[in-house]
């Protein structure tokens, strides 16, 4: 770092010195050193604890006195449900001490521990700082949860845990081949959310075809209400209703082709039809003015205030928007409207899948303990407790009898029943986070819905992004089995 300041012939002036050291000091400001702060150490990491003996009460063979290290994302679902499950663990294994760390900063907290080879035994890898699952799997950092899925369930020892789960949960945890790396504990219903009260006041029913949708939006517009709003700053909320619509119109294989990053996958006529349908909402002025500049909270607030009728979202919205939602809002969710009668799948086809991914690291000291804790959480009692306290379904198939369901939850359960087997599960957001959120979401669909790009341009752009991702050797690729 040579200094180039003017030299006078009287040696090093005081000012010069100060100026130079200031310059050198400032140059180092750009934050780069921070990356190496978490430089990888070649430590030996965790030593595995000894296994316990298997029994009916302890099918996984947990070491009864080994400590358990559990890190939870403390977000929309809070931490109480996990604390309650930990109490059960400590009752079953009184000698074991559970170290519980709730945090919002999963990556900040855990990246150094993965690098040091001493990760905790159970992690809820969720939230804004979620660690990239594809990378974790690709780097062989996760334990296979098959042992957990094949162990006896808490409520009925004659049943395996895997037989007590909702459809799709096991498959979601697989990336390629048989091993199950992730267990999604929550069960999220995605779709179009609205206020039943507001829809009734328009004297309308939820539209099943696109012409009906346009008619409802027109009715709303006449009353000064926008048809739609969405998280404009996070346009990757739009796929929550757009992807299942594509599936409904063109069939599952269209979504599978998109997930598999097949060339020309986005050029399918069903994709074009759905993009054009959504673009029509923009052109006809059915989108709440200013939506492209709103974040998810702002758009949800505008929607609970009755400024807009529909919003594409997931079942967490009931909890997240609770503060601004009027008591008589009567929240409801519906499967997305289709185009017309020629759609490949019936009305009711919707996206529902696991959320809140729990993982057990491969290098954990006590992986059996982590799985045992999950097994406890997948019991009917824990699941009921979760549903009651956070207004969300869990991966456990059932657990809704005999508890008071909130309007949104009730509507979600009804929608799931209506869907039956027609549940689709697009995987882009799990497999290729950057592609789904930034590229397809913000740069593609977001620009189209702001009226700055036509559907044809957008599809071309997204196909290019997908092709780039397919060619990118720095990311691991996955295929539907």
């Amino acid at each position, binding site marked *: 770092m040579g200094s180039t300041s003017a030299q006078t012939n009287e040696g090093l002036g005081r000012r010069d010195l100060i100026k130079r050291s200031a310059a050198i000091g400032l140059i180092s400001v750009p934050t780069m050193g921070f990356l190496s702060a978490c430089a990888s150490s070649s430590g030996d990491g965790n030593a595995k604890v000894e296994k316990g003996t298997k029994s009916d009460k302890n099918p996984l063979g947990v070491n009864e006195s080994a400590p358990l290290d559990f890190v939870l994302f403390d977000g929309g679902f809070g931490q109480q449900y996990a604390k309650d499950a930990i109490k059960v663990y400590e009752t079953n294994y009184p000698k074991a001490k559970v170290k519980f760390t709730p945090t919002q900063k999963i990556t900040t907290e855990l990246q150094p521990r993965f*690098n040091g080879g001493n990760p905790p035994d159970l992690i809820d890898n969720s939230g804004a700082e979620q660690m990239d699952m594809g*990378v974790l799997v690709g780097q062989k950092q996760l334990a296979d949860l098959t042992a957990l899925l094949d162990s006896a369930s808490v409520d009925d020892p004659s049943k395996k845990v895997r037989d007590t789960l909702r459809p799709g949960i096991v498959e979601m945890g697989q990336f390629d081949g048989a091993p199950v790396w992730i267990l999604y504990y929550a069960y999220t219903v995605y779709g179009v959310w609205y206020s039943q009260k507001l829809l009734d006041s328009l004297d309308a029913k939820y539209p099943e075809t696109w012409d009906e949708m346009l008619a409802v939006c027109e009715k709303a517009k006449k009353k000064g209400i926008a048809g739609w709003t969405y998280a404009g700053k996070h346009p990757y909320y739009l796929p929550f209703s757009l992807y299942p619509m594509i599936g409904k119109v063109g069939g599952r294989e269209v979504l599978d082709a998109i997930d598999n990053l097949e060339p020309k996958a986005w050029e399918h006529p069903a994709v074009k039809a759905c993009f054009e349908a959504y673009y029509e909402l923009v052109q006809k002025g059915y989108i709440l003015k200013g939506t492209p500049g709103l974040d998810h909270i702002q758009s949800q607030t505008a929607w609970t205030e009755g400024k807009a009728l529909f919003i594409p979202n997931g079942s967490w919205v009931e909890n997240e928007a609770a503060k601004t939602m009027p008591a008589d809002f009567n929240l409801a969710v519906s499967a997305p409207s289709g185009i017309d009668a020629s759609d490949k799948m019936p009305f009711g086809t919707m996206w529902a899948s696991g959320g809140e991914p729990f993982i057990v690291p491969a290098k954990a000291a006590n992986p059996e303990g982590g799985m045992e804790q999950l097994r406890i959480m997948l019991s009917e009692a824990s699941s009921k407790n979760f549903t009651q306290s956070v207004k969300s379904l869990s991966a456990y198939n059932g657990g809704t009898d005999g508890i008071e369901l909130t309007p949104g939850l009730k509507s979600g359960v009804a929608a799931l029943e209506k869907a039956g087997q027609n549940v689709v599960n697009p995987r882009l957001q799990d497999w290729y986070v950057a592609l789904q959120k930034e590229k397809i979401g913000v740069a593609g669909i977001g620009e189209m819905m702001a009226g700055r790009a036509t559907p044809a341009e957008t599809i071309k752009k997204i196909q290019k992004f997908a092709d780039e991702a397919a060619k990118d050797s720095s990311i691991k690729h996955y295929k539907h089995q």
Partner: protein
Amino acid sequence: MQHGKYRFIVGFLAAPLALYALFVIWPFVQSIYYSLTDWSGLSPEFGFVGFDNYSRMLDDEIFWKSLQHSLTLAVVLPLVTVGLALFFAFMLNVGGRRRRGAAIAGVRGSAFYKIVYFFPQVLSIAIVALLFQFAYNPNSGAINSALKLMGLGSIQPDWLGDPKLALICVMAVLVWSTVGFFVVLFSAGMASIPRDFYEAALLDGANRFTTFFKITLPLLWDTVQSGWIYMGILALGAESFAVVQIMTVGPNGGGPDYSTVVLPLYVYQKAFRDGQAAYATTIGVALLLVTLAFAAVVMKLGRRERLEF
């Protein structure tokens, strides 16, 4: 007094320099080493891949976008901020009408203005970014509401939601939050300029304009140059990262269609979101080069005779 001077300086600087080497230089060297590996940042194992990350970077469209935005910030922000700050400082200290026979004075109420300009400086940049995020809200934000009040209801831009405007919005916030600091800095510099110079200029009948360019600016040059570099570093580094990350559209900022992505943000995303720490350090190395080049250019362009007064 010359003899033993260097020994004296080195003796006193040894400890700070050692710390500096350990906590600044060494991480830089490490970063360069990691940029030659395929370290994910999520596992202790990694292999050596040579210059793969660098060739990937040169083909990376988003890297070029972020470089372009960072360079734009590094050129435009210092220009606007330092220019504005010089103007304000001049008006506060020298530019006023002459009252009560004083040779030089600031504009009326300059003491009050000095305090007001400095306000944004006491707010954390994160708070500033959040406040402006609310102000830019196209639906209920202060700016669009003000436009409505003025009867300009037809002009309701999406601000941060519009790829053409988003980067300009970010720059405006950075200027707003940093200009006060430079006003104070330059005011202090101007206070040390002897008054006789101004009086002499007055006697010669120089107007404000001439006075500024012939007296104030040359005598302030050192301060301006330091300020320039400091502002450039802010624009390339932490401040721009914070504002973009907090304010703009997308999963962790970056604007609609990558319109506000900047180098430090891209480093952050690759390291802490995509699990590609080695590639992130590669972009970090690029950021280092850009910063060094910036400092070198400013030093080179800014060379002038030292004026002793």
